[in-house]
């Protein structure tokens, strides 16, 4: 520890701190532009100059390490003069266009100029002007004359994004910040450069010129598109969401936000919203009031149950719903006598259901996973599923962690990978079993699974060695693993690896409330808080054996189910489909009979439980649009209309109180343990589809966010396959092919990808171009177009 003095305040700081760190620790503000706590030190803006006794000239606080006995003055004459001088230089070429600048009111240059600059400029000469750049549909770089060349944006793409997409060209008096000529900035976390840019050079394209920052109210919320639970500041004007910013939470999203969470709000204000209840009569849709619509629902449900029994009703819930909604939904279903309820719509393998005792979760905190010495990620696209976690793992690798993979494709993760096994989806379990066998050998222990048929290859052994030698390790299953036909085996094997190696074991929760949905019992075989219930049908069974009536809670079956084709067929065959939804989707309009506008996360109070089991509550940030109602209220009223007990809650807190008690700190209810699963390699002939869900098609909200849909990530998918697979089908790279699953054929261009295993055809799901196809990891045919 070093003893220093800042502005007369004595303090001790650890060796290696900079003056900036030390000043922060005692709350002393030093003006700065290029310095950012999460980025490397560039020391190029010189705004942070301070006086250090015995130093001959002012020193940059961000780049000067403290030495014992150092005495720093941040407000001395010398320091102030230096700061003023730097400010004057920074403003020389900066346009005086604050009144029309989008950053006005939240501009660091503006603020610091007021605090540290002179009252007027001595500069008479011509200012330099820099042409605008095209960085894509999310980040606007129209006014690059405003750039002060702090290089935060450059360092962000390189250090956090993992790939330098922005650079500084023509260094010198003609410096310009730009993406590579003709390229856009395509990082899945690119929006963060908007927050980082201290001036109005990089601004939010969708938000530009729509409001002034001081007119907006700031409300806290929680991100609804993945299981991370990023904390949000939602900015609101006149009951409309104007933009979304990150709320810093070091344990979860640090100070970042994925583009998906940042720009999805556009859908909430779009024409695609359902604003009034609607009923279909004789194939025509009619708007109606809530009373009529709910009566219709009650009639539908009682009618079907009277005629076909309660078992003829199936409830499919989206895991992006709030815990309160899911709790009431399962309570209502069970009180009514319906046991067919599930939220795991994209899951295919449910064999572990019976031997499962708790909610599947990450198995550790997010921070613990990110600080593990070795991580094995199984079946995850990472960057598309969990953009911020992927960035966090990248940081972990930089700090020395070993990242190991078992996956169905050799995707670019923009980070160093220690060892990887790339296999077909049905072989994921065999890959993980190889690792287990090697771990058992290394540990001299034996696994509680029959591994006699498993041959350990070198790469699997390297993964095992990495896990065993690490002090702390994590094994995690991603969405691809969870949707694969061998999910239950992966759970069993992963659990064994964890037991033998001491690693944490868990899953990346796919949706914002996957953990909450399991906990409150939106499951066919476990009720609220794990209570024993009469077993119902799971999501796949409800589709495979079509029901007479479906209740859809925030679900668009064609895009949200494992087998969209079968799901749509089941909906069409049903007597009645009751959809609670925020959007009037084309699919729903086609096969539903009644649409009830329920509030998205911004318009209702509620909570999500993230993948580390943390319950995060939020309030509605705007008034519900049109006739939209918060879901929990709708369910309460419906409970009363159906004359069920236990629907007297007056507030969302009343609902929450019913499940928060048993939930406690949650830990006891979280468990990735399974029993009674045997290893068995599914026999497959022919091609198998690798159907991951594209980043901007995961749920109804992002699917309707125009700016996200304009990015390269939302482009119509191509079918990629190993060159050998293409050759066998007589296709060449780039040619148009016909792919077929069940009754549906689509024409797509093919792409050769040597990183794919043989026997698979990779074609993303949930995109309008591919929704008609079948199961995500089911057989698929490929032929010349």
């Amino acid at each position, binding site marked *: 520890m070093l003893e220093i003095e800042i502005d007369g305040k004595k303090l001790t700081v650890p060796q290696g701190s900079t003056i900036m760190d030390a000043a922060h620790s005692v709350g002393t503000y030093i003006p700065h532009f290029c310095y950012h706590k999460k980025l490397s030190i560039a020391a190029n803006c010189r705004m942070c100059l301070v006086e250090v006794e015995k130093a001959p000239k002012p020193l940059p606080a961000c780049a000067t390490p403290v030495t014992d006995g150092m005495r720093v003055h941040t407000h001395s004459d010398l320091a102030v003069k230096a700061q003023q001088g730097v400010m004057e230089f920074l403003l020389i070429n900066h346009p005086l266009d604050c009144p029309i600048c989008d950053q006005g009111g939240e501009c660091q240059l503006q603020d610091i100029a007021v605090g540290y600059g002179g009252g007027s400029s001595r500069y008479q000469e011509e200012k330099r002007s820099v042409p605008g750049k095209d960085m894509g549909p999310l980040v606007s770089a129209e006014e690059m004359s405003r750039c002060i060349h702090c290089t935060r944006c450059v360092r962000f793409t390189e250090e956090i994004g993992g790939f330098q997409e922005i*650079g500084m060209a*023509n260094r010198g008096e003609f410096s310009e910040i730009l993406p*590579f000529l003709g390229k856009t900035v395509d990082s899945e976390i690119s929006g963060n450069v908007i927050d980082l840019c201290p001036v109005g050079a990089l601004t939010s394209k969708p938000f530009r010129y729509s409001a002034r920052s001081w007119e907006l109210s700031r409300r806290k919320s929680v991100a609804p598109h993945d299981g991370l639970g990023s904390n949000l500041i939602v900015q609101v004007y006149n009951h409309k969401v104007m933009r979304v910013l990150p709320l810093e939470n070091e344990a979860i999203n640090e100070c970042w936000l994925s583009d998906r969470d940042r720009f999805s709000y556009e859908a909430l204000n779009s024409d695609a919203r359902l604003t009034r209840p609607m009923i279909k009569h004789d194939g025509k849709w009619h708007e109606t009031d809530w009373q009529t619509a709910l009566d219709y629902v009650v009639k539908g449900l009682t009618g079907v149950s009277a005629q076909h029994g309660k078992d003829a009703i199936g409830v499919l819930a989206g895991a992006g719903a709030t815990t309160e909604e899911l709790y009431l939904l399962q309570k209502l279903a069970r009180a009514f006598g319906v046991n067919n309820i599930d939220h795991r719509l994209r899951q295919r393998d449910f064999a572990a259901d019976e031997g499962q005792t708790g909610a599947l979760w990450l198995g550790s905190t997010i921070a613990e996973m990110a600080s593990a010495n070795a991580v094995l990620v199984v079946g995850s696209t990472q960057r598309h599923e969990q953009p911020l976690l992927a960035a966090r793992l990248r940081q972990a690798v930089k700090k020395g962690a070993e990242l190991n993979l078992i996956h169905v494709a050799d995707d670019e993760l923009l980070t160093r990978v220690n060892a990887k096994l790339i296999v077909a989806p049905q072989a994921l379990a065999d890959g993980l079993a190889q690792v287990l066998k090697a771990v058992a050998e290394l540990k001299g222990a034996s696994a509680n699974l029959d591994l006699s048929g498993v041959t350990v290859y070198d790469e699997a052994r390297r993964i095992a060695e990495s896990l065993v030698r690490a002090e702390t390790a994590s094994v995690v299953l991603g969405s691809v693993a969870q949707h694969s036909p061998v999910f239950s085996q992966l759970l069993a094997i992963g659990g064994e690896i964890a037991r033998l190696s001491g690693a944490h074991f868990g899953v990346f929760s796919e949706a914002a409330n996957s953990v909450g949905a399991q906990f409150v019992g939106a499951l066919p075989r476990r009720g609220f808080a794990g209570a024993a219930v009469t077993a119902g049908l799971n999501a796949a069974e409800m589709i495979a054996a079509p029901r007479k009536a479906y209740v859809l809670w925030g679900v668009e079956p064609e895009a949200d189910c494992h087998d969209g084709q079968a799901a749509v067929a089941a909906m069409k065959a049903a007597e009645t489909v009751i959809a609670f939804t925020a959007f009037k989707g084309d699919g729903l309009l086609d096969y539903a009979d009644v649409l009830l506008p329920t509030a998205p996360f911004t318009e209702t109070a509620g909570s999500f439980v993230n993948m580390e089991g943390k319950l995060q509550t939020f309030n509605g940030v705007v008034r519900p649009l049109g006739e939209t109602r918060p879901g929990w209220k709708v369910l309460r009223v419906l409970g009363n209309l159906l004359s069920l007990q236990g629907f007297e809650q007056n507030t969302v807190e009343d609902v929450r109180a019913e499940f928060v008690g048993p939930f406690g700190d949650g830990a006891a209810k979280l468990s990735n343990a399974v029993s009674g699963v045997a290893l068995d390699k599914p026999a497959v002939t022919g091609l198998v589809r690798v159907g991951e869900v594209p980043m901007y098609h995961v749920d109804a909200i992002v699917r309707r966010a125009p700016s996200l849909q304009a990015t390269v990530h939302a482009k119509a998918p191509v079918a990629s396959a190993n060159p050998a697979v293409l050759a066998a089908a007589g296709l060449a790279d780039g040619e148009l092919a016909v792919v077929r699953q069940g009754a549906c054929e689509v024409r797509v261009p093919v792409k050769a990808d040597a990183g794919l295993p043989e026997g698979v055809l990779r074609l993303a799901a949930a995109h309008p171009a591919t929704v008609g196809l079948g199961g995500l990891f089911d057989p698929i045919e490929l032929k010349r177009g």
Partner: protein
Amino acid sequence: MLSAESLAKIDREVAKYPADQKRSATMSALRIAQQEKGWLATETIEFVANYLGIPPVAAYEVATFYNMYDLKPVGKHKLTVCTNLPCALSGGYDAADYLKQKLGIDFGETSADGRFTLVEGECMGACGDAPVMLLNNHSMCSFMTREAIDKKLAELE
């Protein structure tokens, strides 16, 4: 995109650095690419970047910083005349003016027949030989009096 010969040359440069620091060979690789192509088109820069496994914009940063990289097509012979102080004092401007008049082009221009490009250069560390001129980035021409210039130009195709 680049000939096998150029790639072999780049490989030799890459081999000089640790395997995970191929980026260090950026300048040499760009130079070799320019030698073959005459100038650095965006596609050439991108190709070099991909060959080295670095982000294209990082190679572009380098290419735009050093003025010996030509980001626009140049004539067959690129003449860079030094006009920094020592050369200026010893007739650098005179040499430049003579060249301009003789070739009928200004600084930054290429003659209509595409044979010559004239560029104003900075000190080349050869002030003792002032005024100096650099031919095609690689060969230094000393004491560029009018006669020397005539002689040099006559040698060039």
